[in-house]
């Protein structure tokens, strides 16, 4: 349970600091089963902050998304810190960005939330189709209490949680400046059964599955934008000369995009699931990411976003890395 008053006080305190630009957190949202990111510029803005099981967004995306329009003459760049409300999984993104030197630790003030799992809005939408006047989701011990139009129903967490929460290793943010509530020890382990099952399929079956998925892609690049790790100034697909991936939407280019996106997150993906959640076409992108996460764990004993001092996976090596495939 996260006490919202403690959270608001922490936000108030943080945003009140002179060296903090703003604090990003969650507010109620206007529709459906989803909280929305919100920004506090002044202390009074902290009143709208909430934390409940609908807070699924990974807010670690915002520090890298800041607009930096060209400065006018004599203007100084704003170097104040950014405050972020982070769950355990989200904090790994910041760790990873710090590891890659995209941010410095002192650029952010992290208000950490020990998280006991969030809901998957898609699963709730299936359970409660149609129109609702009011929607509220709360933690109720080891259950979620969902109140729709005044009627409360309780669900077991496994029923509503996304896959990532079922195997969450880091419920408490790895780095934080303020922690709301008590630390929770991570006891769950990643579960690669589904991936292993898929690996065993024949090549043809695998391709048929992915062909169908990639064919759906409309190449809006929402997966890239929602990803806290995709912060390149110029994405490889937007380079015109040479143009590696054409802009037209067909199976060939879609496959190239999706494979390259997954590859570029090798050793960097922190499994927050934002890409899959924001995909308007519901392509199971996490299946690709998870496969790579599993591989690099097995091959290189590496985990992304855990240690800010570690070297990036693909920028280092060990002499005894696996090489049975080399001729």
């Amino acid at each position, binding site marked *: 349970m996260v006490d919202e008053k403690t959270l608001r006080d922490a936000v108030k305190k943080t945003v009140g600091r002179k060296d903090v630009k703003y604090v990003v957190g969650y507010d109620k949202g206007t529709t459906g089963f989803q909280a929305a990111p919100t920004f506090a510029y002044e202390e009074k803005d902290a009143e709208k902050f909430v934390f409940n099981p609908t807070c699924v967004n990974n807010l670690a995306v915002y520090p890298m998304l800041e607009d930096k329009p060209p400065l006018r003459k004599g203007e100084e760049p704003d170097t104040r810190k950014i405050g972020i409300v982070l769950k355990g999984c989200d904090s790994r993104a910041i760790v990873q960005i710090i590891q890659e030197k995209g941010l410095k630790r002192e650029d952010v003030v992290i208000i950490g939330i020990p998280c006991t799992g969030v809901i998957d809005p898609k699963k709730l939408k299936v359970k409660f189709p149609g129109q609702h006047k009011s929607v509220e989701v709360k933690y109720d011990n080891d259950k979620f209490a969902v109140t729709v139009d005044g009627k409360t129903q309780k669900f077991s967490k496994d029923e509503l949680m996304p896959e990532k929460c079922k195997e969450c290793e880091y419920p408490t943010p790895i780095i934080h400046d303020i922690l709301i509530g008590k630390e929770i020890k991570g006891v769950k382990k990643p579960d690669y059964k589904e991936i292993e099952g898929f690996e065993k399929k024949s*090549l043809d079956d695998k391709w048929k599955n992915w062909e169908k998925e990639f064919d759906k892609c409309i190449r809006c690049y929402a997966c890239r934008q929602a990803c806290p790790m995709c912060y390149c100034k110029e994405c490889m697909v937007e380079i015109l000369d040479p143009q590696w991936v054409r802009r037209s939407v067909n199976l060939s280019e879609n*496959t190239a995009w999706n*494979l390259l996106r997954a590859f570029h997150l090798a050793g960097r993906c922190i499994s927050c699931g934002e890409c899959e959640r924001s995909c308007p076409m519901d392509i199971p992108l996490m299946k690709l990411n998870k496969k790579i996460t599993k591989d*690099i764990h097995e091959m290189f004993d590496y985990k992304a976003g855990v240690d800010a001092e570690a070297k990036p996976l693909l920028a280092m090596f060990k002499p005894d890395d696996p090489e049975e*495939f*080399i001729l």
Partner: protein
Amino acid sequence: MKEKFEPNIIGFLCNWCSYAGADLAGTSRIQYPPNLKVIRVMCSGRVNPIFVINALQQGADGVLIGGCHPGDCHYERGNYLARRRMAVLKNLLEYTGIDSNRVRMTWVSAAEGHKFAEVVKEVTEDIRKLGPMQHFRRENKW
């Protein structure tokens, strides 16, 4: 009429070892299949996966990446980095249903003309068995 399938293989060979090895194979008149089309790169570490995917898109049936033996890299660690990269990429391709044997990697030194020819033979035969790469080739139809 069924013509024998001749695979199209793109080779990214490192300037210091594999390319020199290929050169040696040529000058020593060692026979190897003509299916390999060589692109010289300064180091196997230069090979971005985007090159591999793009080659497969543009009509290659397979890709061969050649680098120096571990420890011999002209830039000290480029081939080690390439090895990691390709290990991840090959697994990813296999997972999406593309035979990982289409992307091969080899260590060939400047003195190993014979090894180079052997590798090209093996790769060509393997890919011949796999048949044309049709999964996500560009259609180029407008």
